């Protein structure tokens, strides 16, 4: 290769790197609002850096079944006591036969899934480590349907950017599409080889394995595919002072 060609290819390489970095950065324009809060700016810096520097498809370690450990149930352990307690009590009868997961929003075919519908779809079982923001960890086996399969079943629109989750205990949260379509992001109905126990989020909970535990909402009732970021006001993580993206 001549010197001139090396120079050109070097320039092309640098230009290519710069433009792809720009593309990646512009892909991070869809950031949660900071409301001028320095801590939220730091959260967004960490979010952008993780999306820029880390692989979007790398898998978390999966353990052997023999490595399953004890796991506390924390936060809401009995949703019949909460705000939507009556509604939860109504759907929990008969092994959640009348429970439905609504999937709506920026989708071509909004659908309502029964537990049996979800169990008929392709399933994934993974033994992973739950990392709680408090500092403890637990290893458990989760069985469920990949969230990506559900989003494809409702024909998610190209304009969609976030997937929101709403639970029976009044919580709401969201993930970006990188985490939504990650192969280990599942809607879990089984835990350690049995139906998901109520304190752990029955009938259906989210597992977002590359984020801290509080992202994996329990007691799901509704999924909304959104084109724009929603902070969920007073019930959302941001206005309660918590980071939205918690990869660390």
């Amino acid at each position: 290769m001549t010197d001139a060609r090396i120079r050109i290819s070097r320039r092309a390489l640098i230009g290519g790197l710069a433009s792809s970095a720009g593309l990646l950065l512009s892909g991070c324009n869809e950031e949660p609002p900071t409301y001028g809060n320095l801590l939220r700016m730091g959260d967004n810096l960490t979010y952008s850096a993780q999306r820029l520097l880390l692989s979007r498809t790398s898998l978390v370690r999966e353990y052997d079944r023999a490595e399953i450990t004890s796991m506390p149930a924390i936060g809401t352990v009995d949703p019949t006591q909460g705000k939507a307690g009556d509604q939860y009590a109504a759907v929990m009868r008969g092994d959640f036969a009348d429970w439905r997961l609504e999937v709506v929003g920026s989708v071509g075919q909004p659908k309502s899934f029964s537990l049996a519908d979800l169990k008929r779809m392709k399933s994934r079982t993974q033994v992973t480590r739950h990392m709680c923001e408090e500092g403890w960890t637990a290893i458990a086996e989760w069985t469920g349907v990949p969230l990506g399969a559900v989003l494809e079943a409702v024909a998610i629109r190209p304009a969609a950017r976030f997937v929101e989750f709403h639970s029976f205990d009044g919580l709401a949260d969201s993930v970006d599409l990188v985490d939504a379509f990650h192969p280990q992001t599942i809607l879990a109905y089984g835990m350690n080889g049995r139906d998901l126990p109520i304190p752990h989020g029955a009938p259906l909970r989210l597992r977002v394995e590359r984020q801290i535990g509080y992202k994996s909402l329990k007691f799901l009732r509704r999924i909304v595919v959104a084109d724009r970021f929603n902070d969920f006001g007073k019930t959302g993580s941001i206005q309660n002072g918590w980071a939205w993206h918690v990869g660390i």
Partner: protein
Amino acid sequence: MDPTSADDPAETPLEAGGHRLWVRLTHWAIAGAAIVLIVSGVTILMAHPRLYWGHAGNDLTQPLLEIPLGPNHHHGSWSKATPFFASGGGPVTANRLVEPWNQNSWARSLHFLAAWIFLAGLIAYLALGTATGHLRRYLWPRRAELSRDNIGRDIKAHLRLPMPDAEPGPPYAILQKLSYVLIALVLLPLMFLTGISMSPAIAADYPFLLDLFGGTQSARTLHFFAFVAITLFLVVHLVMILLTRPLRQLRGMTLGNRR
């Protein structure tokens, strides 16, 4: 001859009585970030003051150590444990009945914000320290300095009060060199590595981090002991400054050799 003497041409200070600009900048960036990391880190630890070894550990497993710190020490209001598997004797679950003290919302975000400043300062310090020869010239101990006689002499010098009146900045005696090497080349990088080992996103990309420390909880435990060592260093560092004309030391690390 005293091997730490400034007569050694390799250790002639470039800025008598002060520190170079990049040393001052990185020192204060790391020091400021470290204070914030210590405060937020202790707050995070208070949410769950139990340490474990291995990949997993929680209130239903055996801790390595329970730290008597804050309202969550021996916190526990749990429902009766029920086994996950029919065979019994294996892993269990139990419901937490009372929510513990938790200020992790701001403490975690502040910790990671300060961690960026810490990381930038540490990378700049190590890169410039290597490129300029600063680490090799002023911090890395020479073989002769590691003799028992020399170390013994320096220990005695530190036990005598008042402390000998030293100019701020290099050259350093052997104990000072060893503690700076330990903090800059061992403890601070270890803090970074054990810290990111706890991140599920980073550990997914770099699973060797989990094997390096033997699991997330081992990394968390080492993170704690490295914090203890760094805090001890900080205390000794501040005492030494107070004993050796603190205002002049402070000026040397802030304004350099300007008089």
